């Protein structure tokens, strides 16, 4: 157990350094100059050189990487060139917004996916089943950003009931101490603020969650169908269990393995999807910040963001493996 944990940690560290190195080199090889983006036209070559030196961009690639890595290990992610603030504090401010968005979308997808997969299994060989399959195919075929635009059109333009952009109405000031607005407002029972934050999140969460829900339904329903004809389900049915209980108690935990693995992978895609969806809804998360950072060639910020995405992917995979072992006793040993 301890050995496997240490193993995972070592692999995680190597992965992060690898991701860091690739991004570092890539950013400096592709055309685009952060200094050119920030100076006013007509600055003297001496001024440009001075700025370059100030951000450490005058040294050679290997030295720059070494300096960056050394600073990283002491917890210094560097300064954002375009925002002129520490990368770490920027991430700490923006990441909670994205985490709330991503996990709310995941919760929606899992709840909707489980519900429809179980319903589709209960309703097999009735008219309900092809209906669920058809809706599912539609949800599967449409990508998150198209859902986002459709939602904007539906609930922002035709029936304007949901706010179109931002995270919270600026006139609401609850003096938040964390950046987890949704959770904090709920815990402190600031229900007006909670409702406002939730209504801002509704459309991006649906846009991000629907395609993932569709993946879950498609996979889980197939797996349940297979599990429901196993001998142990037959025996349990003989004992007099209801169909719903057969699905939940007998079939689900054996059917969920592949769905879990794929949901983990898809969830990392979903976090990637926040980049575009946050942009569409001007939602102040790290995705939106990443777009600006790339446009401004803000090298330290891009590097910090990519490392952060890498770390999230690693954590998600760890969580998926832990959950898989929880559902499948055969994975628990060794």
């Amino acid at each position, binding site marked *: 157990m301890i050995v496997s944990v240490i193993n995972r940690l070592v692999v995680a560290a190597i992965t992060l350094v690898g991701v860091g190195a690739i991004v570092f080199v890539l950013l400096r090889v592709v055309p685009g100059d952060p200094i050119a983006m920030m100076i006013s036209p007509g600055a003297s070559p001496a001024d440009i050189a001075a700025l370059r030196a100030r951000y450490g961009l005058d040294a050679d690639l290997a030295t720059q990487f070494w300096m960056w890595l050394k600073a990283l290990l002491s917890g210094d992610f560097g300064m954002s060139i375009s925002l002129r603030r520490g990368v770490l504090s920027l991430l700490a401010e923006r990441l909670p917004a994205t985490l709330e968005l991503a996990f709310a979308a995941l919760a929606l997808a899992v709840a909707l996916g489980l519900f429809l997969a179980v319903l589709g299994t209960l309703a097999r060989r009735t008219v309900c089943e092809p209906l669920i399959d058809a809706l599912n195919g539609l949800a599967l075929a449409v990508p998150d950003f198209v859902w986002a635009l459709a939602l904007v059109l539906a609930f922002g333009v035709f029936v304007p009931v949901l706010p179109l952009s931002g995270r919270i109405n600026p006139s609401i000031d609850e003096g938040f101490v964390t950046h987890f607005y949704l959770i904090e407002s709920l815990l402190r029972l600031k229900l007006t603020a909670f409702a406002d934050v939730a209504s801002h999140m509704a459309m991006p969460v649906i846009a991000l969650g629907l395609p993932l829900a569709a993946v879950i339904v498609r996979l889980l329903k197939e797996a349940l169908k297979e599990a429901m004809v*196993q001998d*142990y*389900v037959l*025996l349990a049915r003989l004992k*007099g*269990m209801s169909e719903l209980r057969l699905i939940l108690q*007998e079939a689900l935990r*054996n059917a969920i393995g592949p769905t879990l693995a794929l949901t983990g992978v898809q969830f990392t895609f979903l976090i990637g999807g926040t980049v575009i969806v946050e942009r569409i809804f001007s939602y102040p998360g790290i995705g939106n910040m990443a777009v600006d950072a790339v446009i401004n060639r803000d090298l330290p910020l891009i590097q910090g963001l990519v490392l952060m995405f890498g770390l999230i992917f690693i954590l998600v995979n760890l969580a998926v493996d832990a959950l898989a072992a929880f559902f499948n*006793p055969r994975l628990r040993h060794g």
Partner: protein
Amino acid sequence: MSPILTIERLSARVQSRDQEILSKVSLSLERGEVMGLVGESGAGKSTIGKALLGILPRDVVITGGAIRYDGRDLLALPARERRQLLGAEITLIPQDPQTALNPGRRIEAQLTDGLRMKRGLSGTQAHDKALALLEEVHIREPERVLAAYPHELSGGMRQRVLIAAAFALEPRLVIADEPTTALDVTVQKQILRLIRSMQEAHGTAVVFVTHDLGVVAQICDSVTLLYGGTVIEAGPTANMLVHPGHPYTRALIDACPRYDRPDAGLHPVPDGVISAMRRDLSQRYGRPV
């Protein structure tokens, strides 16, 4: 006493292929009796077992006849009463212990489902009863086995657990669906003895579905031999194995490999016997057999 089970002229057909798979099958089983239901693949032995348990595939419909259990016609019984009987008074020992236990649940949970749902036992009562059951099927360290998952047990152990589960609610009729087919030969013998001793101790009648006349000789009081969905011959085991009445029965007995005469070679059932029997059956039931 009246028989515990009588099947009267039971017929069934597969709808999609429009083919009759059981033709007027009749048999009768006394209380506490073990009856072998023997036949080749497709003879209809499993179909009868499934009909008894009410788990026929959707495609198979019963077209006539009756299944009388303890005086009540199972086929005419309201669904509610039927569910009460199945899994409690009539239970199943399944064929393959690898797939008949849920890989994701502990043995205790699976062994005590019926006790808790049908008998209303509390968790501790069910636990004690499960312990006693495991001891009865000769499982050492029953506490450890109760806490184990199926993959931690051998095939023979799993089949013992399934036998314990089948007898947990004191059934009066157990359907054993080729319960030794998936096991290796040394374990087979132990499992057969175990089913016999459980059956004797509880006074349970057993329908033993098998294709193996050797197994029949070891465990069954009587035999019903099937071919093509019809009864070829029925009677007490000793009688039938020593004085087979039908040429097909005789040929089947001759086809069994003999451990005491390894040089005797194998004798497949002669084609002539089968074609004569099929002609005969086709005439009698008015369908190709």
